[in-house]
């Protein structure tokens, strides 16, 4: 009697799995589990940064590409550091990141080819409304960072080797400061989580403008400094070198890069807005 119940249970589990898969797509179970959707398209793995994916821009850019070519773009959003590591390991086909020096080294070392600069946006310094370091309105980023350090106002760093983190560390270096002490706190987390932490702690933080716009309704922090040249945030795209990793989808990567610098993609970038504000500026129009 109860053994029968057990048999029914196992059947229920199997049926749930099978029914679930027919709901997902026409493809077979194994196809789905292998990451195929059953259509005759090749997979193109794009490793990019969380801020790029979270901005929502890719959801506008990719469908037009997929329509034109028979590729399916799978976006893996990680920090710039890990995205480059994916490229070195051949776990991604194409990279879209924002850390120019690291990108150039990557290409120099033969891991990537055909690097193109496609767009830019900028970084801003966010801070609490009462602005304890009194830097509101400063356009000089180095000056702002120096004042924060002098006043020992709480500063939140991503500390995760991301593009934003690399940029922040670069500014400290240029300002001649080795940030340390109780006021300098590393989260090791993504941009959004770090902004939330900075908001809760009434701290200063360096953020890309896109993530700030996405978060500004939820936080009390506001922009205290913007416009310095050093805040320039350049996005590059690189194909992973098929000489190093013959398995990568090199043709797909080339097609994707060509697409991103095309007029069509550049216009999508120009016209993409969040809360009425443009997030990225195209470089090839």
């Amino acid at each position, binding site marked *: 009697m*109860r*053994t029968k*119940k*057990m048999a*029914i*249970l*196992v059947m*229920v*589990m*199997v049926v*749930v*799995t099978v029914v*679930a*898969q027919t*709901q*997902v797509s026409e493809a077979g*179970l194994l196809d*789905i*589990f*292998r*990451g195929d*959707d059953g259509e005759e398209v090749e997979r193109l*793995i794009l490793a990019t940064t*969380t801020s790029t*994916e*979270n901005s929502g821009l890719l*959801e506008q850019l990719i469908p037009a590409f997929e329509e034109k070519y028979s590729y399916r773009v*799978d*976006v*893996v*959003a990680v920090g710039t550091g890990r995205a480059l590591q994916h490229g070195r*390991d*051949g*776990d991604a086909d194409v990279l879209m990141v924002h850390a120019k020096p690291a990108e150039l080294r990557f290409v120099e070392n033969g891991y990537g080819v055909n690097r193109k600069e496609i767009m830019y946006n900028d970084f801003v310094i966010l801070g609490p409304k009462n602005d304890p370091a009194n830097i509101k309105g400063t356009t000089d980023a180095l000056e702002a960072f120096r004042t924060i350090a002098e006043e020992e106002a709480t500063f939140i760093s991503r500390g995760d080797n991301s593009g934003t983190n690399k940029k922040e560390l670069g500014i400290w270096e240029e300002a001649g400061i080795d940030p340390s002490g109780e006021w300098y706190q590393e989260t090791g987390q*993504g*941009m*959004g*989580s770090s*902004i*939330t932490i900075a908001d809760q702690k009434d701290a200063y933080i360096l953020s890309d403008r896109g*993530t700030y716009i*996405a*978060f500004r309704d*939820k936080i009390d922090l506001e922009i205290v400094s913007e416009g310095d040249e050093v805040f320039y945030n350049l996005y590059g795209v690189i194909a992973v070198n098929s000489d190093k*990793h013959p*398995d990568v989808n090199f043709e797909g990567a080339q097609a994707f890069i060509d697409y991103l610098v095309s007029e069509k993609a550049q216009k999508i970038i120009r016209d993409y807005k969040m809360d009425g504000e443009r997030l990225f500026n195209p470089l090839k129009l």
Partner: protein
Amino acid sequence: MDYILEGLSAALRLLFNLNPEIREIALLSIMVSTSSTLIASLLGIPLGFVVAHYDFQGKGIIITILNTLLSLPTVVVGLLVFSFISNQGPLGNLELLYTPLGIIMGQTILALPIVVTLSLNVIKESEDKIIDTALSLGASKKQAMILLFKEVRFGILGAVITAYGRVIGEVGLSMMVGGNIRRVTRTLTTAIAMETSKGEFGFGLALGIILMTIALAINLVLHYFQEVRT
């Protein structure tokens, strides 16, 4: 408080409208977790039985290792699986990275020690008495074993439920091995993590409520099977 209300109402809207993308995400979560729990059970229950029943050298070490694996963070298992199935890893040519199959593989590794240790404990606890009593009633060794299985099956089902709870709720491994790729490997937990990082707390909470609803439904079903009628 705002987030909670926002989350609740968003969850209700999502559930009733059955947004196709949310449905896909939820179904993928169920499929992946059910598959890994099934595989872990098929491997783990016999393994638990063997370890409980037979004496062999190194048995103590195996039990210690299994118990240690129970407290392994999902990210570490993720890292381990990742380094095996990455292009640079020994299983790189199977192309499992960023596929649901990769997640299933990792979740199976997560679930396996739970199934093995819990069923091992259930079997060990009652084995001697059940077998002795059965033998004294004239059972052959095989008949005694069958009776043992019948007697411990609810305890073992409990082990399976626990394992299911662990895999359907884990995020570290799915994120690492699956990559949270939209329409391919995005599960409820990785979607929640992503929405949270985007600042969409209400939406994240809504997905969390859907996850809880699924977990509740599954537990109710399993509980029905586990129930001892008196």
